[in-house]
Structures are given as C-alpha cells and as structure tokens.
C-alpha cells in the first residue's frame, strides 16, 4: 500500500509491538501526530509537559520492561530538550528509539525556524543515529533502529525525519516476526543479545578455550567474589548468576545498576559496592583473590582509587561489550558475550567448591543499624519495602538515590529504575511514569525523590494526574541539595554555597494545584499509614517526608580513595 512517511513511521512502531509512545507535538512533526490520531485505537500516546521527561519516560518504560521505549519530539528546541534524556539512556545502556521531526530538506542548513542539527549533536550519546533523506529508506531505517537499540549492549538510537520525508509517499509492506530483522544484521553482524541455534554453536566453539581457563581460575581461587552489574539485568542472567555463586561458594557484591539482579534476599549478597557501598562489599572486594565481574564496566564510582582496587585479585571479566574489557581495569581473563549464555556455559564446567571460612568472613562484615525514634531516610525505605517488597522504585539523583540503593532491599531485576551513569537529576518522575505505563497490570510505582531533584520535573504531576498513572511520589525533603551539601560539609569547610532550598514551593499546595492527594509526614508511623493507603489506592499521589537538613549518606569513601578507606561510617 502507498503511505506517506509519517504513516509509515506509526505503522512501523505498531510492527514492533510498541504499546505506548511518549512525546510532545510541534510544527515539524504535525504529519506524524496526524497519522497517530488516525491510529489511536492501535497505539497509545502519552503527552508530557516537557520533551525531556517524555524521553525519560520512554527510558523508564524500557528499563522496567526490557522492551524498547519510544519517544517523539519536534525539531529544534523539541529535539534539543531530548539531549539529556538521550545521554541518560546511553550511559545506562537503555534501549530507546527517539524520533524527531526536522525542517523540510529544502530549508535545512539555512538556519530556518526551529532548525537544529540533532543528529550531529547526538552522535556522541547515541548508539547510532539517522537523518532520513529519502522516504524509500524510512521503513528499513526504523527496523534497523529497533534492531540496533535492542541487540548487543542496548542503547538509544535517534531517527531524525525532515518534514518533506514525512509527507512524501512510497510503497509500504507491513512485516512481522523474523522478517523485521534488517538486512544490516547480515552485512554487519552485531553481537546478538542472546545467540541461538547455529550462532550459539559457533559461539561455544570460539569461547571454549576461555571458558576452560575461567574454570581453572575458579578452581584455583580461595576467596572468589562475584561482582554483578547492570548487564546481568539486561541479559536476564540473575538465576545463572546466583547458581554460579552457589557453585563457586562466593559472596556477591553489586553495582547500583545490578541491584535486584543480585537479590537482596540472597544470603550471599553483601550489598552495593563503591563510594556509598557497604562495609561488607567494599572490604570483600579488597580481600578477594578472584573477582568474577559480570556485566559491569568498572565505573569510577565503584572503583575508588583504581590503582588500589581489588589489589589481591585476578580479574575474570564477562561482558558483551568488548570495549569495556581492559578499559578501566586490566583483566586476567575476559569472555566477551551475553552474560546469561556465558554463565550457562561456565556452569556446565565448574565443579562445586567450598569456601565456608571466606563466606563467613565476608558476611561477618554486614552491619546492623541502631533503632531509635528519629525520622530517618532508611526507615522510610524500610517501611516502603515492608508494605510493597516487590514494588518498582524509581529515583532521582542525590542522597535519596543512595539511601534507596542502600536501604530498600531490591529482590528482582528491573525493580530499581535509577540514572546511574549520567546521574540525571530530574530523571525520576518521567522514568516512574514510563515504568508504570509499561506494566500491563498497572501496579503502582514509587518515586523516591529529593526536594532538589523534584523541582526539576514537577511539571509532570499534570501528566500522571491526567492519565491517572499510579506513581507514588515520596519526597525526601531536607530543604537542601543534600548530596552537594554533604560534600560541602566534608570537603569544603561547611561553606554551603547555593545549596539551601529555603524557597518552597509548598508541596501540599502544589499537589492540590495538580488535583493530587498530598500528605506531609514527619514520623515513621504517619509515613507507613500514608504509604500503605497510597499503595492500596493505586492512584498518583505525593508524600512529603520532612527530614533533617544534615542527614548524610553513609558509609562514604572520598572520591579517588581506596574503597576500604571510609571517610564516613
């Protein structure tokens, strides 16, 4: 059938079984929104208040579901508003297809109204991007974009479509199933997310010598440690990881992105590692003699002083992205590949080991907290986890994010939605909205946010209110940009430069203005009651927790210090 480019785009999104797209219309995407209007029975659109948060919503949708998220924005400022969202998705390997309109090609390069070179701008922060110049290439380009975004190490892909390409007509043939895999996959075989059939056999043969060496390293180790990252979540390798830990008899530490895949309910889990890692995790890292790193990229926040990181350990690094090998830490041995596949193959050849003493040593470092009546962040998170242990929790960035990572026991992959790599304040509300929209059962999602971060995205209260998206916003209000204040306290002589937020808004009035239920609490009992009621109601609402301005995130390792040298306990 003959369709215009805009219609082909929407049909191609339907082909990819995209249920919900997030976006914001404008001059250069009018044809796209017109074709969307004609197909509203086949695809949902969520209109946000700002393109950035549509981008974060598509990202949150992808992180929570594992499916590729989609976001649409207009040319110029619409497109540039996406830049932070794209970079956020890129740093955390989240599969999102961003679609932007652009001015007609006849006007491109003339500094015309709302013109911006978004493909040029986003080259460093996308896995790949396209400027589509011919409608005949459009359908294949969209299929390529979904393929690239979701295979290998996932990531965002941007497709910029000039308005004349949206309006030009060409033949379109709907495809489904394997036919959707683009020609590109044959021309340039990208790492498959999970090799199957013949590809798996080929992979096995190739990986054989390395698997053999890996099982030797494991056999020789006395103090093995498993280091779990976001790649385990992406690959869905949590069961294999736990099985390997049991087989090797090793404790587990996790990065921020790996939380949940390394389940907090497992006795082997020592917690998060790094700058705000647990004593147990950081000390085990420094003592281990074999580090089995799976789906991690050895981020500086996890490593501390790289030259003093895991000083006694041989490093076995398993990752799908070959460029991560030997980037920040030299490895003894690496196996490039999908985590689940590699762990399955490894499990088939590793014998049962016993390291009772090492396990006991590692676990003995896990600390308990004193219980008192003070209204503290960790008690909020504990209460949340008691009421809804399996709930998806999104965060913004700062102290509340670290408190959430430390104190909410995440027990399944994709349960924590957080901007790890880029550390984007303002990520949370959009991401929580996207995560909630991705759940077919419509279960509520919590957003743990700070008063600082929340001020960056609170316009989206209108979106969750209008669409009745069940996001429970929990504001950790300490009246300051807490993480910056913490550094000012510790490293800048308590000179609180531009961090005190003594300027509102009144979050209760704000909730009211957006037609949402708001509750302000200053003790654990009231919080529990409010959160339980909110969870059971399953409606968007806001709970403001009044906290001390001097609350800190502890433990803490100063940047660039060895990770067992804590500056705050």
């Amino acid at each position: 059938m003959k369709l215009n480019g805009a219609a082909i785009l929407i049909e191609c999104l339907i082909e990819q079984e995209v249920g919900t797209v997030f976006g914001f219309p404008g001059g250069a995407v009018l044809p796209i929104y017109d074709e969307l209007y004609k197909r509203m029975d086949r695809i949902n659109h969520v209109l946000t208040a700002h393109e950035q948060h549509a981008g974060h919503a598509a990202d949150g949708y992808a992180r929570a579901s594992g499916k590729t998220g989609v976001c649409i924005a207009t040319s110029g400022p619409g497109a540039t508003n996406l830049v932070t969202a794209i970079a956020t998705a890129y740093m955390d390997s989240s599969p999102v297809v961003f679609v932007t309109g652009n001015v007609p090609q006849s006007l491109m390069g003339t500094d015309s109204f709302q013109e911006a070179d978004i493909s040029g701008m986003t080259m460093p922060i996308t896995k790949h991007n396209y400027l589509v110049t011919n409608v005949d290439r459009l359908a294949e380009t969209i299929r390529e974009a979904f393929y690239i975004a979701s295979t290998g190490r996932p990531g965002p892909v941007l497709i910029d479509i000039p308005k004349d390409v949206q309006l030009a007509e060409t033949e379109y043939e709907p495809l489904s199933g394997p036919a959707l895999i683009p020609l590109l996959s044959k021309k340039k075989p990208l790492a498959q997310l999970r090799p199957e059939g013949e590809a798996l056999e080929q992979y096995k043969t190739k990986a054989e010598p390395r698997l053999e060496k890996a099982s030797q390293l494991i056999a020789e180790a006395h103090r093995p440690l498993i280091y779990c990252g976001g790649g385990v979540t992406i690959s869905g390798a949590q069961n294999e990881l736990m099985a390997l830990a049991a087989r090797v008899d090793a404790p587990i530490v996790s990065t921020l992105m790996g939380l949940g895949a390394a389940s907090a309910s497992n006795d082997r889990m020592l917690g998060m590692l790094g700058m705000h890692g647990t004593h147990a995790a950081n000390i085990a890292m420094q003592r281990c003699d074999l580090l089995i790193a799976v789906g991690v990229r050895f981020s500086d926040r996890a490593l501390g002083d790289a030259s003093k990181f895991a000083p006694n350990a041989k490093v076995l690094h398993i990752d799908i992205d070959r460029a991560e090998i030997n980037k920040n830490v030299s490895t003894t041995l690496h196996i490039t590949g999908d985590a689940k596949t590699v762990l399955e193959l490894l499990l088939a050849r590793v014998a049962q080991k016993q390291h009772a003493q090492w396990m006991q040593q590692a676990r003995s470092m896990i600390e308990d907290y004193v219980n008192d009546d003070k209204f503290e962040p960790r008690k909020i998170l504990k209460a949340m986890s008691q009421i809804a242990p399996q709930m998806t929790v999104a965060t913004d960035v700062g102290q509340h994010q670290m408190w959430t990572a430390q104190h909410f026991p995440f027990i399944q992959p994709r349960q924590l939605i957080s901007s790890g790599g880029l550390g984007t304040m303002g990520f949370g509300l959009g991401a929580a909205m996207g995560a909630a929209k991705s759940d077919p059962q419509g279960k509520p999602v919590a957003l743990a946010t700070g008063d600082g971060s929340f001020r960056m995205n609170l316009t989206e209260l209108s979106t969750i209110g209008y669409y009745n998206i069940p996001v429970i916003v929990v504001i950790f209000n300490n009246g300051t940009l807490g993480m910056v204040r913490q550094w000012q306290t510790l490293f800048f002589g308590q000179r609180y430069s531009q961090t005190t937020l003594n300027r509102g808004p009144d979050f209760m009035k704000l909730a009211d203005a957006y037609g949402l239920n708001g509750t302000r609490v200053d003790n654990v009992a009231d919080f529990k009651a409010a959160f339980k009621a909110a969870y059971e109601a399953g409606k968007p609402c806001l709970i403001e927790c009044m906290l001390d301005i001097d609350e800190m995130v502890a433990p803490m390792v100063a940047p660039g210090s060895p990770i067992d040298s804590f500056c705050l306990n």
Partner: protein
Amino acid sequence: MYMNKDNAQRYTVGVLVDNEPGVLSRVSGLFFRRGFNIDSLAVGTTQDPEVSRITIVVRGDEQKIEQLVQQLYKLICVQKVQVMKPRNSVERQLLLVKVKAGITEREGLMRLVDIFKAKVLDVTKSSMVLQITGENDKIESLMSLLEDYGILELVRTGVVALERGEDVMTSDIFD
C-alpha cells in the same frame, strides 16, 4: 590490576567504513571525545563505491590502541579495523609546496627535486610548486631544506597505508 599508561608509540590504523554522509564526523568525533591524539587522517573511497577507507596515525600505548580499535568497532558505520605493523606495511603521504624561486634559487631547487625524486608542477619568474610523495621522514627533511629558500605555501595529505603481501584487511590483532 592497574592500567599502565606509559609507552606511547606511533600506530597506523586502517578503517573500512560505509561510504555515507557523516561517517568521517562519527570517526573523528570518537577520537576527540575518547582523548586520542591524531597525527594524521586520510580518507577516500575504495574499489567498492559503498566503502570508504580511512587511514589514521595515532599515538598511544598498546592498551590505548586496543581501546581505540574496540571503540571503533562499536560504530555501526565501521566494517573493519586493522592496526598495521610498521615493518609489514607501506605508507605514503603527498606534499605540495610553493617556494620562492627567483633566477638565483632555481638551480639549487632543481638539485633538491632530483635528490628527492620530486616533481615540478608549476614555475613562474619568482616561484615554483613542487610535489613529493614518501614516508614522513622524507617529507619532513625536504621541508626543512626548503625553508632556506622560503616556503610560501604548503599543503600535505594524511598518511595512507597498506599491508605488504597478498593478505587483505581481515584480521584483528586483539581478541
């Protein structure tokens, strides 16, 4: 398990890429943002009109070059990357130079042209345009000799290189 970041060496890297708009920008942007120093870059189409070949001369230690190769492979437009071993490859660059050449200088210049197997492309009463091809050292030494005559204008291409023998770009040095 710390990375040793010494031992910078000169590497010549051949990259086969899709012949598409924006490709050079993707490749050079990657070099810039990952902090690789490019000594020279040359690009042109190949016998296959859909494929271009980029030759890059870059400095770094082995780990840095390994990173570079792997990062290049992540670009969708990159088909093959080859780090060439200096002893096993041939490389050339081309220099065009306009020098002051009055009646008194002309003869001396012609002697240099002869020694360096250069070519004279243009002669006027007061200037000459010379062309020379060769490896970096040869070009540099001619340039230093020409300085005595007065270089008016100069342009040089980047290095282009091929491996010796019948092997074509297929192998990666890093697994």
